């Protein structure tokens, strides 16, 4: 960790004027920012064992270098506490992985935003909410880590709404989109353990997602009954995943997960059921779309007469199954941009050693 070397600008002490300055410079998501003074940036870097000038990669569409220091500046602006910074840094590393397709995520007309999911003891240490109301509002870690990611995508990546971020509608998820999984209440293993990590490891997963879509079922008394509702909600012809096959999320609430698990269903059976049943009838696609989708997803659309219906993913493993949220008979379907793949990264020291607490980085 080294000193702050970024360019500096001297402003008045008046917080309103400072915010007007950042807003006028286009360095803002529209909400007030915390002024990134050298002292605050330095404090942010206290929870980072890397050199401040280390570059994680170039961030599209402007391909500006995402240095540790620039990330820290934006984390300060977002209101992050310094101990949140390791999550921000790991999320950026994950987003820069080629398979995430950050250029597409940043520039598309779709309403995608990176969803940051934190697993393991660090999620609990930082009080990242995975329970009731996890998508907000109210939790500082969720709100500010997610916001830091957006400010980084704006200020470093240069994805400006309407200009280089071509999203037709934008999205409330583009302000902030960070959660934990509800590991305490999942009847199955947590997501990061499914991916080969130990329960005591901590990870950050990024997926290019739409906003959550609710799945209401207060009546189901069995796994089979509930999954009929889930499959019906998921199978829609206007979803990007139907022709671009990303990793759509089925986020079960703890109560719904219990309904499914109590009948002996594991995640593999859930995924297989969704692959077999969360299908859009071929008759629901118009002729022009079938023709357009043919070269993109030939497995189903090149010879439409051979398929009665189309699943959301090419293989059952394409579904992302999570448990989160609080009490209530609601689950969530979170479609993706499609042309993006989920990326999971462990939170580590700069040498790659997995850590169990962010204090190991001080």
């Amino acid at each position: 960790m080294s000193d702050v070397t970024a360019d500096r600008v001297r402003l008045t002490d008046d917080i309103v004027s400072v915010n007007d300055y950042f807003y006028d410079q286009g360095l803002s998501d529209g909400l007030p920012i915390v002024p990134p003074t050298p002292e605050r940036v330095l404090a942010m870097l206290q929870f980072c064992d890397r050199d401040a000038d280390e570059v994680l990669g170039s961030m599209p569409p402007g391909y500006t270098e995402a240095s540790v220091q620039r990330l820290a500046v934006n984390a300060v602006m977002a209101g992050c506490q310094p101990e949140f910074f390791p999550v921000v840094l790991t999320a950026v590393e994950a987003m820069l992985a080629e398979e995430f397709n950050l250029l597409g995520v940043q520039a598309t007309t779709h309403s995608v935003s990176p969803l940051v999911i934190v697993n393991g003891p660090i999620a609990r240490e930082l009080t990242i909410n995975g329970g009731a109301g996890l998508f907000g509002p109210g939790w500082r870690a969720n709100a500010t880590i997610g916001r830091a990611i957006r400010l980084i995508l704006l200020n470093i990546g240069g994805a400006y709404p309407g200009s280089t971020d071509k999203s037709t509608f934008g999205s409330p998820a583009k302000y902030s989109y960070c959660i934990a999984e509800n590991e305490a209440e999942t009847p199955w293993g947590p997501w990061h353990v499914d991916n080969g990590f130990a329960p005591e490891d901590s990870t950050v997963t990024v997926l290019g997602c739409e906003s959550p879509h609710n799945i209401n079922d207060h009546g189901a008394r069995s796994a089979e009954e509930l999954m009929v509702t889930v499959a019906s909600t998921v199978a829609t012809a206007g979803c990007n995943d139907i022709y671009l096959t990303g990793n759509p999320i089925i986020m079960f609430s703890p109560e719904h997960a219990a309904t499914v698990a109590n009948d002996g269903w594991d995640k593999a059976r859930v995924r297989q059921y969704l692959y077999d049943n969360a299908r859009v009838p071929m008759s629901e696609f118009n002729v022009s779309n079938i023709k357009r989708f043919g070269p993109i997803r030939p497995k189903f659309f090149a010879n439409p007469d051979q398929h009665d219906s189309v699943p959301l993913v090419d293989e059952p493993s394409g579904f992302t199954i999570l448990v989160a949220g609080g009490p209530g008979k609601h689950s969530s379907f979170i479609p993706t941009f499609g042309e993006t793949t989920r990326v999971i990264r462990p939170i580590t020291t700069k040498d790659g050693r997995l850590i169990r607490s962010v204090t190991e980085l001080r």
Partner: protein
Amino acid sequence: MTDSFTALAHTLAKSTGYPDLAMVVVKHPIGGLKKTDVGPRMVPVVQELLDALTLDPAELLRRAGDRTVGGFRPPRPRLAAGPNANTGGSNE
């Protein structure tokens, strides 16, 4: 490209090392047009397309003009400039 995507195209051309990349711009949108409407939209740019493929790069660069893409400049949500209107900072 269509004219709705010029800022993105110019940004990407510059950021990926091809600032003088020849570009042909048509009116947005193209997607969703009936076949009979596509031709008239394309005819005016056929010569531009041929030029892009055959002219000297220096001439193309001259024709391209200024491709500077401004940063994000959202409008001030104010009826009139208030006491905090002048926020220009000074570089250290």
